[in-house]
């Protein structure tokens, strides 16, 4: 019985791993192919099945004038927009979440939970609902097709995530921790940044991870709110497609797009596996 269980367990893990990893390997392999190797017959292994070439990768950094599709600038645009928006969202979101967790707000029928829900409701809405208001808003203040405009919009999108995660996290931090800090002689601000915040690093990391992921992968708003001046990576990658699908450069760009998230995943995983996310205050 237990042998069967072990067998099934490993079987499914193996199956799942193949399911997840295979597309990546396929993309890696494809990124080194040329037109011939993709379109003539199915090929898998470099040097045996096909002659690898770096053409798919070179196109990504060549300027359009030389027949390339320079993704370097969109890449750094994406990094800038995602990191800036995530950072601001985390800072503001954490402060908001702490207030929502520790103080009681009352405005008419509105209570703490309603405010928290209001934040989350921004994510429940289908993004398309927001597209026209955002477009009009940004064009009114003259930030269409600019990095700053994108940062503003992304903060709106990412802050609810930060608030949502951090409210839940702070609610699990006993209020006695803050009270002890007050008794020990901190003022409320010191209590927050000397005691509560260091204890909340696991929560901050998780919130940061989600913000970076959602910021990085957004295509919709990047597509609608930018035209020629500024381009973000997802839009540029999609723009690679043409009448003859360049599978090789598409694969290469997909890999470089995913790379930062993989790095983030490795960093975060180290913190999560420390086990101090759930047991932070036991």
């Amino acid at each position, binding site marked *: 019985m237990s042998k069967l269980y072990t067998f099934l367990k490993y079987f499914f893990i193996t199956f799942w791993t193949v399911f997840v990893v295979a597309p990546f390997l396929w993309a890696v392999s494809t990124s080194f192919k040329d037109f011939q190797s993709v379109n003539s017959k199915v090929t898998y292994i470099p040097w045996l099945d096909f002659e690898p070439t770096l053409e798919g990768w070179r196109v990504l950094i060549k300027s359009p004038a030389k027949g390339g599709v320079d993704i370097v600038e969109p890449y750094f645009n994406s990094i800038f927009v995602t990191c800036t928006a995530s950072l601001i969202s985390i800072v503001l979101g954490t402060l908001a979440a702490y207030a929502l967790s520790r103080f009681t707000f009352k405005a008419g029928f509105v209570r703490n939970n309603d405010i928290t829900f209001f934040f989350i409701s921004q994510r429940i809405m289908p993004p398309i609902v927001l597209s026209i208001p955002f477009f009009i808003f940004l064009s009114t203040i003259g930030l269409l097709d600019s990095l700053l405009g994108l940062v503003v919009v992304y903060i709106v999108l990412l802050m609810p995530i930060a608030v949502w995660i951090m409210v839940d996290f702070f609610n699990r931090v*006993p209020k*006695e*921790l803050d*009270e*002890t800090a*007050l*008794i*020990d*002689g*901190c*003022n409320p601000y*010191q209590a927050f940044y000397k*005691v509560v915040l*260091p*204890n909340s*690093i696991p929560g901050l990391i998780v919130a940061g991870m989600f913000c970076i992921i959602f910021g990085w992968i957004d295509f919709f708003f990047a597509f609608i709110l930018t035209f020629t001046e500024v381009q973000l990576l997802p839009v540029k990658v999609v723009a690679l497609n043409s009448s003859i699908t360049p599978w090789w450069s598409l694969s290469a760009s997909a890999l470089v797009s995913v790379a930062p998230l993989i790095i983030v995943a490795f960093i975060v995983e180290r913190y999560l596996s420390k086990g*101090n996310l759930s047991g*932070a*205050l036991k």
Partner: protein
Amino acid sequence: MEEQMAKIDLSNISHTYNPLDPKPTYALNPFSMTWENGKRYAILGPSGCGKTTMLNIVSGLVRPSKGEILFDEIPVTDLKTEDRNIAQVFQFPVIYNTMTVYDNLAFPLRCREFTKEKIEERVKAVSDTLNLSSFLNSPARKLTADQKQLISLGRGLVREDVAAVLMDEPLTVIDPDLKFRLRRNLKEINEQYKTTLVYVTHDQNEAMTFAENIIVMDQGEIVQVGLPKDLFEKPKTTFVGYFIGSPAMNIFHSTVSSDHEVKINDTTIKTNSNLGNLKDKNVKLGIRSEFIELAEKEKSNTVKIKLTRVEDFGNFKLLTGKMGDLVIKSKVEREKPIPDGELNLYFPPEKCCVYSDEKLV
């Protein structure tokens, strides 16, 4: 350093958690009390009687709905917690997870900008007292629950100048053996540094062994303040009689028959209380099982009971008997032979307490 320990006055304090309600329920009914500098107090009472609220009012975590708090005659009611110079230890260990044990203990001093040498000296002294010296450099989160509570305690004791150290059932998570030692340590610290200690507990033994003064609370009301001996021998209300002592005080419904006598069923019991103006009223007679004596034969102030149970507790025997439908418990010496069936119990008049409306006459 400036001597800052203080006499703490609570003047007409009361508190409700729903002040906007037309009929607010009070967690603390109006009371006044003074905590003398350097004494040990225990606040004793069942869960939800307002003990913790009282502590939080003193430390400033809760602002009382009414009344004033004074440290050495200076009003501090509007002073924030961080400016009050109070140490408070909670029921469950609260530690700063991201810091080492040393940093945890030093934190209250660093917040108040003590010099490095002073901090080192105090942390060393406190960690020696609490047996934490060997852990000073380990991360606080790696310690066991009772060691963590020692850290909480240590943070309370590390400041020599605190007005008072308030402890809210601090030894709940600590194992019994260590508990005993720590209580003694706390006593020593109190005697050595003259720090006012206020200790909240629902455990009467803890309160009795720890404190010089015990404050008994029930349902937001301070029922009795006094020495352990007073609480034991002359409980002011039947509640104190029930709550303190093990087993609880024997309490019987009775009727006043003359100036100094009450009748339980048909037995007349003489007391030392003056019952002149309570004639024929229904009262309650209370007597500790410790004070009830075995009598050879019927005489005045004895009751005849039917023995229903004898329990041997090692150092004493607990007799349970019935007189009609009244249950009487009596503690007797272990060696004393217990006759079977019916026996006579003697109630010493000076040990009998009479309660009218649950209050001592």
